[in-house]
């Protein structure tokens, strides 16, 4: 028998979408505000400072664009450059809005992936009497708002500055804001569909790993673009006029992304018919896209289509290649030397580092940097400058020796970067799995040895690789190569000892995202200390060579003294910090 229970009128759910969206967004705002309210005073001050800086930056961009665009429009400037800049300036809205659309599309992908699949609140929200549409609109807005604010920080002052300097119609200003909002929403809508399509093929957590890896590669590549551009700049010579020509061709009305920019310029200049046509096409296209994406995403999610993997579970999560302990390259030589628990931890760490793309993305940066700087050395020919020939011979000879060895410092720098991650976070990377080591019968010495090797061996391998390349380029003698290799072996060991010790003191086992492993200041302190210690230990290796030359002693004396002094201090850096943290290691992860 079916019975319907009548809900009291005061408990009937509110099925209106917009109030529900507001409730959900207000909850998000409250969470953000609570985060600020409960933050430490230092963090609060920092956050206020950052906001003020951003506000200042926006004002600066607006005034700079107003001024510079005004100058560019002046007849003197046009006469000076000999190019009509008006069509080029009219490109600015189209370019800015295209960047906004593509930028929102790309950046909201990661946020939506988290918000729809990994935040864990979707099931809760969808079981409450809140319209499903409201949940999706709130999620889309949540994904758009931070990135929209960031892009607007640069885009809005620029577009307003253009409007002021060009004396555009007053309708231009509100329309700029409306167009930006609508385009950002359309981009987020597209992004939500993309997320669901990707999750059909790749599990969400794996997708986040891949996204993090790609993001890291792009980030480090972009940050180094300046160096590459400087090195190769001479080879690419594009004149300003040619660049302007290319930009003008790209502003074709055949690209829907250009409609918004062209419509805004037409509106500003009072070409009503063109502006109405282009802006209504843009707004209509964007609103339809957003609505279509919203309805489709809802349907896909609610029907379960978006959560169902196209490829079966077994195939999606590809079986990892089993590791044969007896034949793997690494264990081949070391297996007989190392205690079993040490070897087990080393193997386990290498496997997990290799398989988790989020870890790999942190390790790839030193490699990219190393390759870029090695390329720079290669392009410069790797030769030590000959000098003017005015300095005394003894000075030039000492200087030449020191300079030749100092380029070996590149290998140490690359090693240092990889050590900062592997040694500094050696213990923290265990995360919530540390209990497995803690309950096992492992001696503290063995645990430290294992973590030392996990950090030291890749750094040494990389350092050796770079040293070999640099030695070939700089035509170092065999003796110099062997001496440099010993210096690298010892100096890297010293840095590993220091960074690992700081890693023990600042160990953090409560992270969920590997990018948040390094939670405290101690990791930075370790890095600063190693930056100070590295020149000392490496300097003690090479300074005696210059001094031997200076005092006209046999070079073998220089090598011997350098070896003793450099190795002693590096050995001290290796063992003393680790000895100091032995007791602490025993008590790690005990609240």
């Amino acid at each position, binding site marked *: 028998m079916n019975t319907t229970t009548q809900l009291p009128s005061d408990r009937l759910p509110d099925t209106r979408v917009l109030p529900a969206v507001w409730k959900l967004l207000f909850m998000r705002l409250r969470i953000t505000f609570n985060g600020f309210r409960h933050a430490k005073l230092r963090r609060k001050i920092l956050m206020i400072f950052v906001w003020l800086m951003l506000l200042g930056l926006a004002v600066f961009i607006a005034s700079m664009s107003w001024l510079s665009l005004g100058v560019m429009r002046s007849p003197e400037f046009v006469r000076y450059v000999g190019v009509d800049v008006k069509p080029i300036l009219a490109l600015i809205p189209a370019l800015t809005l295209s960047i906004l659309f593509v930028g929102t599309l790309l950046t909201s992908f990661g946020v939506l992936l988290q918000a729809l699949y990994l935040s864990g609140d979707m099931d809760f929200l969808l079981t409450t009497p809140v319209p499903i549409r409201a949940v999706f609109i709130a999620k889309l807005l949540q994904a758009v708002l931070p990135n929209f604010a960031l892009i607007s920080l640069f885009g809005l002052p620029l577009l307003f500055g253009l409007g002021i300097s060009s004396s555009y119609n007053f309708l231009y200003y509100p329309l700029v804001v409306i167009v930006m909002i609508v385009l950002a929403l359309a981009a987020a809508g597209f992004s939500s569909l993309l997320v669901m399509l990707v999750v059909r093929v790749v599990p969400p957590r794996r997708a986040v790993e891949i996204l993090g890896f790609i993001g890291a590669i792009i980030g480090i590549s972009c940050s180094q673009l300046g160096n590459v551009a400087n090195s190769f700049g001479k080879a690419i010579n594009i004149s300003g006029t040619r660049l302007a020509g290319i930009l003008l061709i790209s502003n074709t009305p055949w690209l829907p992304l250009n409609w918004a920019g062209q419509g805004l310029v037409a509106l500003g200049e009072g070409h009503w018919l063109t502006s109405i046509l282009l802006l209504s096409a843009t707004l209509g296209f964007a609103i339809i896209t957003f609505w279509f994406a919203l309805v489709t995403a809802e349907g896909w999610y609610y029907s379960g289509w978006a959560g169902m993997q196209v490829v079966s579970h077994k195939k999606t999560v590809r079986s990892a290649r089993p590791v044969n302990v007896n034949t793997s390259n690494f264990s081949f030589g070391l297996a007989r030397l190392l205690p079993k628990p040490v070897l087990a931890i080393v193997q386990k760490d290498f*496997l997990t580092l290799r*398989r988790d793309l989020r870890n790999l993305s942190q390790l790839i940066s030193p490699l990219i940097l190393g390759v870029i700087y090695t390329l720079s050395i290669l392009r410069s020919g790797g030769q030590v400058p000959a000098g003017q020939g005015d300095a005394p011979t003894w000075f030039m000879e000492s200087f030449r020796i020191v300079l030749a060895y100092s380029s070996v410092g590149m290998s140490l720098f690359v090693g240092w970067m990889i050590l900062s991650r592997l040694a500094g976070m050696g213990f923290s990377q265990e995360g919530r799995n540390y209990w497995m080591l*803690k309950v096992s019968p492992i001696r503290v010495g063995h645990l430290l040895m294992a973590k030392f090797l996990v950090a030291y061996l890749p750094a040494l391998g990389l350092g050796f690789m770079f040293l070999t390349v640099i030695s070939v380029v700089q035509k170092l003698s065999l003796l110099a190569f062997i001496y440099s290799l010993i210096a690298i072996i010892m100096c890297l060991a010293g840095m590993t000892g220091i960074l690992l010790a700081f890693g023990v003191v600042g160990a953090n086992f409560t992270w969920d995202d590997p990018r948040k492993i390094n939670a405290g200041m101690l990791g930075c302190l370790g890095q600063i200390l190693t930056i100070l210690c590295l020149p000392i230990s490496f300097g003690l290796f090479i300074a005696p060579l210059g001094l031997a030359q200076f005092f006209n002693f046999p070079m073998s004396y220089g090598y011997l003294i350098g070896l003793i002094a450099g190795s002693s201090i590096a050995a001290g850096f290796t063992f003393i910090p680790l000895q100091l943290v032995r007791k602490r290691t025993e008590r790690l992860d005990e609240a």
Partner: protein
Amino acid sequence: MNGTLIETRNLVKRYGDKVAVNNISFDVLGGEVFGFLGPNGAGKTTSIKMIVGLLQPTSGSIKVAGYDVQTQSMLAKASTGYVPDTPNLYAKLTGSELLRFVGDLYSMDRGQVAHRIDELLRMFDLSAVGDDTVDSYSHGMQQKASLAAALMHDPKVLILDEPTVGLDPKSARLIKDILRQLADRGAAVMLSTHILEIAERMCDRIGIINKGQLIAVGTMDELRTLDKTGQASLEDIFLSLTGGAEEAEIAEVLK
């Protein structure tokens, strides 16, 4: 029954002013399954963590398999297997790699490790996914992998924190059978659980902890003597010892 394999004496754990475990003493003998019961926040997990060497006691002593957990920690740990309440395992290792790793941590012989991995994966119905990474396992499969890891070195003492949470009835039954077999072979099994039916049916002796203090220890018959009727179920005994009247009041409000 064999000799005492877990011995705690005047165990105390303080976090600042808060006393999480207050002067508890109990023994677990070889060959018995010991149930450790208590309401949420009573100090069960803290006590267990001190026994397995995850937490240092503020005072008191613990011996596992005759070894002092503080002064002979390596020997005590080598005799213990531990299954935590949340199966945090290395997500990027495969099931068989995880077990091999544990075997190596306990310095087991290579041949023995391979044999044991095969045996445990089969026993826990994980053979088909033995080469898949742990992050592709369901919660129940991770729980079983965690238990397999704890059994890898055939421990004399097995300590489990809420072992049946998230398991399907078949797996829960398998675990109960395994624990019984282990005890029958002379091992000491200590488990904490909220499911009183499991404790009543599986455990030879039961300890009840409340607000950090051990308020009752004994067999089911011995615990029944605490009740006037002598016929009470474990649920009744548990509620009367740990403040069941409060729960009854809450239930009354919800009516």
